[in-house]
């Protein structure tokens, strides 16, 4: 019996998370003031089907919990109860709690009874009390020492942590005895001169301390860079220690690590499924990260996971990504497939291996595919008929059949690709909550506009673009949009606007994040960069170059680091992630008027646009995205630089030349290799470079195949593809090639 049921669990959970999401967005819509019966209905339906489902599957805790929510919603729906801000807040946090419960069940972990009880009580109070009574009560419940902002639970004040806790202890019956610290340094922590051991020693002085080390991310020995920190720790310090003392220890590494400090609760000795999302629980509010929305938690966890891989990926550029398509389905894909799953930060980590990846596809897409398959079958039988008794007179008919088949197959390819395409709303839909929570915390008024949510993009990209977007939006929220008073003073509307827009252009999807905030101050940026020694003194930079500075590793506007945007991934990581996806990121900013960040991404990773080039008898594919232009060249245009190779002048710039013959040891077609040829000007990691090839063979779309499946990684090559004649051509990895060439040049100059 249980086995029978458990096969439906996956579907049940997917549906639940979907329902929760619907409830969440519904509640957020209510939040804006306009009370719409239809919205309440949607929320109610969500709760109702979760209740029904969990009852069926015997998850009684969930059913009971949802029942109370449902009762509350029912009264709202019938107009017996007013929809108040506190009620919405309680409901929102209940949604989070419900999500926690479900993830716990999914992970087969015990449900955190204390938290559930707390929310249950909150709901019951809301239910029994009159609207006003409930308001006061919730307030006392969640936060006694609060200033009375409208969104009580979400704006817990972290400046008085100890006081908060004491009050909570009574209600939640959880006695705090110490702290659990998840400390996950970035790879370059050691290079900043920080020594984790020193910090641990200091921790040990504070109280009884235990550490567990996570060595999962350590690469193979030969890939190991001793200067990188590949391990992370979970530390437990037991004792009556003020949070500030712990924070002080980690002060120096802020920005170089993922840090999460949680109180240890005795009752729930198990590292709580409570996790970070339980905003209104003051205990959590007492940490340095008072608000953790699901969407917020997720990137951090993901980031730390992917972090190790990141650097390798940077080397291999497209390769790894393409691979991940083939080889890491579990690792990446699963994460957000039913995208809601991605909402549960930690659990996910453990469950990644277990959960299977599935995709929800619009039936019209499937129908279209089946139609085409039908066509193909018909064409095939027609061709078969011709083939049986072939007479030369039938040649035109045969040709017609073949061209028809070709067309159908192309259609088929397209519609199969289409199935992998998901609307970008899978990513966008979690941002309203993020913006809602963060703006409440910052005390800013911000409206989020979503445009083009139905723009479709490959599933792999949908999953990988989330973290960078979260980071960029947080940046906009924190640094971009000014405080209301400041905005009014500047003659802008009090409410700031962030517009998140997606649309197709060419073979790309463009995602834009526009805010009408204060914009980037180029003078400040330049000054900061000079101060940090990132650019030489007295450099003169264009606006574009100045804005580019924020992508430089190690660059941060220190004055503006907060717990919202100073601690996550840096902009350099954002850019690197986007580049690994084969994309581009650009900033346009108008001081005082706002900033627009635009991200350009390929629609899919499996097929790329390439330019095939001939080098000797070999054919290589250069990804079209990295090509700036191609120039026919002769001897006179080349300049030799002693010991450093060759350059040529492109308008006002001298560009180094990489001779493909030399670097790949290919015998040139004709002996006069120096004089005749084409220079393909490519950009890799911000460096312009000219690839010297024999000739251009023409652009074509290529299906990316991994070289590593059966073979090995080859430097300067990101993958392979199969050409029309069945032969294999290598796809060049431009950044890798540039790096490779730079290392090679000295060697060659010795030989020369």
């Amino acid at each position, binding site marked *: 019996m249980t086995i029978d049921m458990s096969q439906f669990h996956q579907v049940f959970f997917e549906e639940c998370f979907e329902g929760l999401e619907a409830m969440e967005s519904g509640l957020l819509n209510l939040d804006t003031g306009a009370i719409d019966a239809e919205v309440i209905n949607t929320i109610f339906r969500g709760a109702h089907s979760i209740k029904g489902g969990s009852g069926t599957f015997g998850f009684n805790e969930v059913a009971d919990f949802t029942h109370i929510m449902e009762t509350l919603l029912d009264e709202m729906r019938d107009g017996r109860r007013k929809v108040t801000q506190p009620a919405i807040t309680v409901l929102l946090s209940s949604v989070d709690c419900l999500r926690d419960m479900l993830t716990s069940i999914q992970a087969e972990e015990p449900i955190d009874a204390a938290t559930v009880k707390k929310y249950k009580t909150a709901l019951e109070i809301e239910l029994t009390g009159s609207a006003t009574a409930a308001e006061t009560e919730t307030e006392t419940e969640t936060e006694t020492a609060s200033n009375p902002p409208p969104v009580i639970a979400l704006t817990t004040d972290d400046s008085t942590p100890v006081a908060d806790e004491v009050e909570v202890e009574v209600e939640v019956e959880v006695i705090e005895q110490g702290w659990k610290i998840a400390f996950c340094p970035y790879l370059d922590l050691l290079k900043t001169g920080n020594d984790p051991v020193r910090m641990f020693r200091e921790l040990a002085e504070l109280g009884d301390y235990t550490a567990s080390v996570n060595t999962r991310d350590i690469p193979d020995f030969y890939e190991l860079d001793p200067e990188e920190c590949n391990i992370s720790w979970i530390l437990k310090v037991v004792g009556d220690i003020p949070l500030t003392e712990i924070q002080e220890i980690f002060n120096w590494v802020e920005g170089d690590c993922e840090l999460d400090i949680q109180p240890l609760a005795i009752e729930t000795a198990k590292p709580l499924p409570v996790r970070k999302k339980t905003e209104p629980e003051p205990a959590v509010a007492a940490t340095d990260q008072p608000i953790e929305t699901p969407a917020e938690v997720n990137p951090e966890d993901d980031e730390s996971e992917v972090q190790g891989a990141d650097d390798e990926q940077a080397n291999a550029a497209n390769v790894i990504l393409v691979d991940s398509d083939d080889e890491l389905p579990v690792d990446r894909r699963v994460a957000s497939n039913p995208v809601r799953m991605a909402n549960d930060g930690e659990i996910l980590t453990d469950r990644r291996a277990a959960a299977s990846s599935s995709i929800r596809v619009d039936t019209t897409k499937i129908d279209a595919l089946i139609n085409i398959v039908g066509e193909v079958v018909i064409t095939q039988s027609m061709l078969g008929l011709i083939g049986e008794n072939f007479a030369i007179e039938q040649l035109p008919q045969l040709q017609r059949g073949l061209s028809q088949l070709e067309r159908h197959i192309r259609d088929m390819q397209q519609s199969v690709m289409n199935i992998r395409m998901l609307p970008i709303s899978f990513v966008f839909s979690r941002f309203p909550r993020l913006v809602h929570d963060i703006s409440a915390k910052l005390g800013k008024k911000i409206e989020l506009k979503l445009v083009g949510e139905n723009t479709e993009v490959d599933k792999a990209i949908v999953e990988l673009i989330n973290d960078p977007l979260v980071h960029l939006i947080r940046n906009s929220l924190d640094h971009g949009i000014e405080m209301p008073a400041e905005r009014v003073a500047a003659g802008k509307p009090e409410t700031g606007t962030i517009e998140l827009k997606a649309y197709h252009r060419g073979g790309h999807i463009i995602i834009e994040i526009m805010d009408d905030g204060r914009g980037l101050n180029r003078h400040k940026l330049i000054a900061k960069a000079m101060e940090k020694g990132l650019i030489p003194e007295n450099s003169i930079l264009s606006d574009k170059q100045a804005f580019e500075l924020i992508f430089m590793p190690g660059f941060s506007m220190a004055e503006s680091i907060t717990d919202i945007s100073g601690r996550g991934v840096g902009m350099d990581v954002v850019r690197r992630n986007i580049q690994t996806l084969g994309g581009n990121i650009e900033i346009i900013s108008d001081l005082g008027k706002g900033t627009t960040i635009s991200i350009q991404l390929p629609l899919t990773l499996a097929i790329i646009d390439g330019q095939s080039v001939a080098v000797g008898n070999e054919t290589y594919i250069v990804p079209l995205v990295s090509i700036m232009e191609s120039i026919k060249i002769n001897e006179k245009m080349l300049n030799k630089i002693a010991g450093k190779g060759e350059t040529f002048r492109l308008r006002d710039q001298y560009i180094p030349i990489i001779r493909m013959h030399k670097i*790949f040891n290919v015998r040139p077609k004709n002996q006069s290799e120096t004089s005749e040829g084409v220079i393909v000007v490519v950009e890799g990691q911000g460096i312009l470079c000219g690839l010297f090839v024999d000739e251009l063979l023409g652009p074509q779309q290529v299906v990316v195949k991994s070289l590593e*499946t*059966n073979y*090995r990684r080859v430097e*300067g090559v990101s993958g392979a593809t199969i050409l029309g004649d069945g032969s*294999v*051509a290598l796809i060049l990895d431009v950044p890798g090639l540039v790096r490779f060439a730079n290392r090679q040049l000295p060697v060659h100059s010795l030989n020369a």
Partner: protein
Amino acid sequence: MAQAFESKGTEQDNTAQYLSFSLGSEEYGVDILRVQEIRGWEPVSRIPNVPLYEKGVVNLRGAIVPIIDLREKLHIPFTEYTPLTVVVVLQTNDDTKTRVMGVVVDSVSDVITVDKTKIQDAPDFGTKTGNEFISGLVSVNECMVILLDVDKLLKLEELKMSEG
């Protein structure tokens, strides 16, 4: 996998079947359960900056498969490829994953059934003769067949990335 087949496929546990092929005047054998297919030689796409015996890659029904010249790998003088030259496509287990690779040999001879107890260890000629790939020697019809260990044979050498 291969192990399971090995015990099932042979009537007695102490025999094994090998595919034998020739390289110059020598006869070699590989475990037949590792042989995926035998193909004629066809031109490969060269891979830059890898050892000489790694000839390149070919398209094997959509998979990119590397081709290794066994003569060069075993330091036997290279000969031009002829229409008789064949590629034996082998499966190899490299730590965790299974790879498919092709090896170029002069010609395929036979499938031989070998009594496992009759397999001798290869005599030690010192280190430089490529002894590490040899799993044993066996005599078939008065001829010596050198049995190769596929996994060791096809383990790719680590490349020093900075060297051309």
